């Protein structure tokens, strides 16, 4: 084996790439093994013509890796990154995303929709053209190719052409999808056209960057920074403009069964039907006027950095937002009362347009607020003091973007999405959002305290979630042993009890195990999780109802005198409740992280002995970490139990504990946005994969994604600032093997 040939890096790399191709061939495809013939799936994968494709992929990867040094200079040119991002985005939209939700279009993806649409008479001719003869694909190839050629050859004229093509292509794609939707006439939530629009615009931006480039080396971060710093709040204004224009001109406002009505359609629809005057005026003209007024005010405020104008824009946006909501309520309520076909009640049947208008007003108001709360001119020039609060925050999300107000810009965008995107999503995604994503985000926030901040590996975290859920079940009378009936609580009132009991459980687990270090603690917590689950399942004394579980946990309700609010089957109600819970927890935990306790956690995480020497009561601090983390998952448990209405021990298996740890690490240990993003991405992914790969293979793909993520971004999606510092070398010697390992060849050594 010591011969020159086999130890040559090229040979090793080639072998690695071939292995990759082989594994890919095994992963992709419908082949399933059989108990009678273990070689069947192998043969299906390897001895079929398509293996050639995979070998070609392997060779391509090999070539890319080998010639990487030659490629790199080109990759640094301005425009390359957006070009790649845009190309991939359009590609994704045309391969993975749905272009129609209607069951009549096959699986609803681009190719399926295109093949149907190309043969449909009566579809708008431009849309028909777009879908026929692979034009969508050709357009993508041409735009991308022109952009790439422009970058490679530094041809500005070509770049301009590509930019124009990009804009045209994006709009064409978007309107074509809209045409299909109008044609089919069913409520539609598919994202393909919108994502394609974004992708094409990114391609256009890439081409523009090339056309206007001054240097040979791209500095995306500095560029974005300049963009953000140019006029504070301006990105929000632009976003508001785009969203608002789509909302008021093109998107669906009202979609009872069998119709998609834009704003003007909606106005005509309700004309003379007794809609409250304000709402009718809003539909007729007030909406447009409000939008333009808010937009202009916000833009002017941002451009002039005028504080008072900023306040005016914020106020105007808020008023407009409220008016929009009132209109939406009025018209849906009326439609349901009047018995419009398919109208089911207030807040139902709203298209995305109405919500997008809300989002636009929200964002514009945000822009005004950003301007209004900006420091004086002098402060901005030396932006360091103004940025001090942001710098102290745990994440690196806004680290690179130091422009004044940029963290607020991000915040407003995220809030607008969280508030106004879910109503426009499909029922499926709404359900996923409230029954999986939201809950696991809450759990990840809790576990982040234990794992990320205090550095204690907890593999049994789900036990607290179980305790919270069962506490709720008990207090609401869904278990065999019930509290006296006058004590039956609404699930929301169970929250403090669940928190208290989880706090106790956290302390009970923590107290005997605090002497243990890292991995010993991990196995003990794992054992704790299993003990809780098995006990719930074995049901000693019939306290938990065993595997039959607790059925009939009521939905939350608030009854405070005149205010009465009852949650039911509607997912959105749960979403806003969850959002409130998450926001409260996040606000509390942000304070906590910067507090004395947060710093004590960091200290014991880094070096327990030294922390003790500096006078930190490590026992107390660790116990607090356990207890606080546990209480968060108690809240999640309450929410979960009352939302699903049924729990059984199967919900609390060990695998879920491990997954929560994976979410936190995947997102970025110790970073609140990281933990949330990690949980959101990894709970979203399996549901997204439902449309992409056979259900049986979902976990395999998730495993592969997690693995790749850890290889290429070991610190997580949004690494914590403190942790990032460790990675960059402050604490490098703490893992001595790492430093000692010599450089060599490896599959993941490059890229």
């Amino acid at each position, binding site marked *: 084996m010591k011969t020159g040939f086999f130890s040559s890096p090229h040979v090793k790399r080639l072998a690695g790439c071939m292995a990759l191709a082989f594994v890919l061939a095994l992963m992709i495809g419908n082949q399933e093994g*059989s*108990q009678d013939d273990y070689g*069947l799936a192998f043969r299906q994968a390897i001895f079929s013509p398509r293996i050639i494709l995979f070998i070609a992929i392997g060779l391509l990867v090999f070539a890319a890796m080998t010639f990487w040094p030659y490629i790199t200079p080109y990759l640094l040119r301005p425009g390359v990154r957006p070009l790649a991002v845009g190309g991939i985005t359009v590609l994704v939209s045309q391969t993975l995303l749905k272009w129609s939700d*209607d*069951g*009549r279009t096959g699986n609803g993806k681009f190719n399926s929709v295109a093949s149907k649409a190309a043969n*449909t008479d009566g579809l708008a001719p*431009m849309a028909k053209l777009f879908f026929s003869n692979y034009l969508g694909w050709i357009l993508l190839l041409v735009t991308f190719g022109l952009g790439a050629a422009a970058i490679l050859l530094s041809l500005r004229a070509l770049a301009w052409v590509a930019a124009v093509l990009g804009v*045209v292509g994006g709009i064409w794609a*978007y*309107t074509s999808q*809209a045409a299909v939707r*109008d044609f*089919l*006439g069913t409520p539609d939530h598919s994202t393909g056209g919108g994502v394609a629009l974004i992708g094409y615009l990114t391609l256009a931006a890439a081409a*523009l960057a090339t056309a*206007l480039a001054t240097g040979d080396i791209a500095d995306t971060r500095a560029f974005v920074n*300049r963009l953000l710093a*140019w006029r504070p709040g301006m990105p929000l204004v*632009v976003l508001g*403009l*785009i969203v608002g224009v789509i909302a008021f*001109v*093109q998107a669906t406002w009202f979609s*009872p069964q*069998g*119709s998609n*009505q*834009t704003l*003007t*359609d909606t106005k*005509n*629809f309700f004309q003379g039907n007794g809609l409250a005057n304000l709402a009718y005026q809003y539909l007729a003209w007030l909406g447009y006027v409000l939008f333009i007024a808010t937009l202009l005010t916000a833009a002017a405020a941002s451009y002039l950095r005028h504080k008072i104008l900023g306040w005016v824009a914020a106020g105007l946006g808020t008023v407009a937002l409220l008016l929009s909501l009132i209109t939406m309520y009025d018209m849906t309520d009326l439609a349901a009362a009047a018995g*419009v076909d398919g109208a089911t009640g207030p807040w139902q049947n709203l298209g995305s347009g109405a919500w997008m208008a809300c989002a636009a007003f929200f964002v514009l108001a945000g822009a005004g607020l950003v301007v209004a709360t900006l420091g004086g001119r002098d402060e901005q020039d030396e932006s360091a003091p103004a940025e001090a609060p942001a710098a102290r925050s745990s994440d690196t999300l806004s680290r690179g973007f130091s422009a004044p107000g940029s963290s607020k810009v991000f915040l407003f965008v995220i809030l607008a999405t969280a508030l106004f995107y879910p109503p426009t999503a499909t*029922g*499926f995604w*709404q*359900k*996923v959002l409230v*029954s*999986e994503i939201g809950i696991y985000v809450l759990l990840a926030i809790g576990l982040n305290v234990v794992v990320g901040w205090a550095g204690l590996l907890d593999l049994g975290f789900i036990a607290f979630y179980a305790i919270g859920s069962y506490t709720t079940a008990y207090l609401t009378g869904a278990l065999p042993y019930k509290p006296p009936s006058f004590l039956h609580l609404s699930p929301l009132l169970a929250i403090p009890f669940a928190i208290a009991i989880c706090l106790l459980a956290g302390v009970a687990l923590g107290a005997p195990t605090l002497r243990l270090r890292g991995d010993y603690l991990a196995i003990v917590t794992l054992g704790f999780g299993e003990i809780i689950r098995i006990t719930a399942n074995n049901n000693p004394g019939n306290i938990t109802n*065993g*595997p*039959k*579980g607790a*059925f*009939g946990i009521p939905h939350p309700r608030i009854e405070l005198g005149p205010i009465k609010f009852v949650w039911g*089957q509607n*997912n959105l109600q749960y979403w806003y409740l969850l959002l409130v819970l998450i926001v409260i927890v996040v606000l509390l935990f942000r304070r906590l992280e910067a507090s004395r306790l947060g710093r004590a956690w960091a200290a014991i995480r880094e070096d327990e002995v030294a922390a003790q020497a500096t006078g930190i009561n490590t026992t107390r601090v660790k116990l607090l970490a356990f207890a606080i983390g546990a209480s968060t998952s108690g809240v999640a448990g309450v929410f*979960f139990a009352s939302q699903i209405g*049924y*729990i*059984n021990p*199967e*919900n609390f298996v060990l*695998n879920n504990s491990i997954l929560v740890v994976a979410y936190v690490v995947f997102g970025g240990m110790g970073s609140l946005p990281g933990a949330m993003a990690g949980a959101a991405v990894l709970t979203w992914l399996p549901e997204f994969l*439902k449309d992409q790969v056979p*259900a049986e*293979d*979902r976990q395999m793909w998730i495993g592969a994604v997690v693995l790749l993520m850890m290889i290429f971004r070991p610190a997580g999606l949004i690494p914590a600032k403190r942790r990032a510092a460790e990675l960059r070398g402050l604490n490098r010697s703490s893992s001595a093997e790492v430093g000692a390992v010599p450089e060599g060849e490896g599959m993941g050594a490059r890229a």
Partner: protein
Amino acid sequence: MRTQSLAKIAVVGMVGVLALTACSNSKKSGSGLGGGASSSGATSGGTYTIAFEGPLSGDNQQLGINEVNAAELAVNQANAKGDLGFTLKLLKADDVGDPSKAPAAAAQVLQDNTVMGVIGPSFSGATKAVGNTYGDAGLAVITPSASNGTLQTLGFKTFHRIIPNDNVEGTQGADWLARKGLKKVFVVDDQSDYGKGVADAVQSELKAKGVTVTRSSVDAKTTDYGAAAQSVKSSGAGALFYGGYDAQAALFAKALKAVSYTGITAGGNGVKSSVFTKGAGDAGNGWYFTCGCLDATIATNAKQFTADYTKAYNTPPSTYSPEAFDATNALIQAIKDAKSKGSVTKASVLAAVNAVDYQGITTEVKFGADGEPAGATTVSLYTQKAGQIVSVGLLKDQS
């Protein structure tokens, strides 16, 4: 400098966007109350979808795969026959067998407006989590395997199942064991909803008949049944009843043989399958199974089903495949009935399912008012002889 020019371009681009979106939209015409174009030029003929909800990933995925394959086979066969007058599609919704994932799977099913009925959920837990969701949507649900004895009492408006529930099976099985004159019976469950349900029913009925019961449970994920088998032997019990599924029962049977236990060994519906006979081999000979199902030898097309399934999926049908096949065919029958009576809607299919009478390969599919299989109180006894499951007769006639 550069930023300024960029800004200009952005403004120009935005104007372009505005203009184009405005143009593209100008063709559209408004429509009055109740209007709206709903022509379906994109497709022709009726396409109806049958949804399957069950565990297609996760630890219990094989059970779901067994069922979904059978459902797919039924759909494909119905389409291939060509006399439906409509096209059937199968929508696979994966709920991981987990009650917390079931609502999302149900939402996925409900989102497709062509879905006319659901096969599943496979597990009682998942059924409890989504029974009301389907019920409120008026979507007919036929589960091939959720057998928990309380499901029919929970007020799910559209719930049906084609297998008898745990209580019936367990109670009659216990009566039979009691008639044997045994003093002591060992009851083991697999800690699952189904297994524990059956075992509880057996235990309480035996106790009522004055038989001493020793109760134990072994996690279904365990592969080592040594200690459990040894306990059965050491206890000196005259019979063992296992509440659980076939694969585990096969392991248990082997372990019992290893300690040469000689008492009566019996299991429920979940055990009676080829998975058990194949896995246990000789050790399975002499096991009894209580099952509220037809004798498979009566149904001649059961063999055909086995052959078709094996051909399509390279593997013989397994636990609950025949039940899922029957459930799907019954649902297809109901859609046909609905079509012949007029329109196919969720409501008409539901009505047709309530009235369906379909001769399947495991049972005659017919539902009572609460969605329970009609005539489910007739439980038969089967036994394994020389590696084959053979019918002994009706359980109540056995002594």
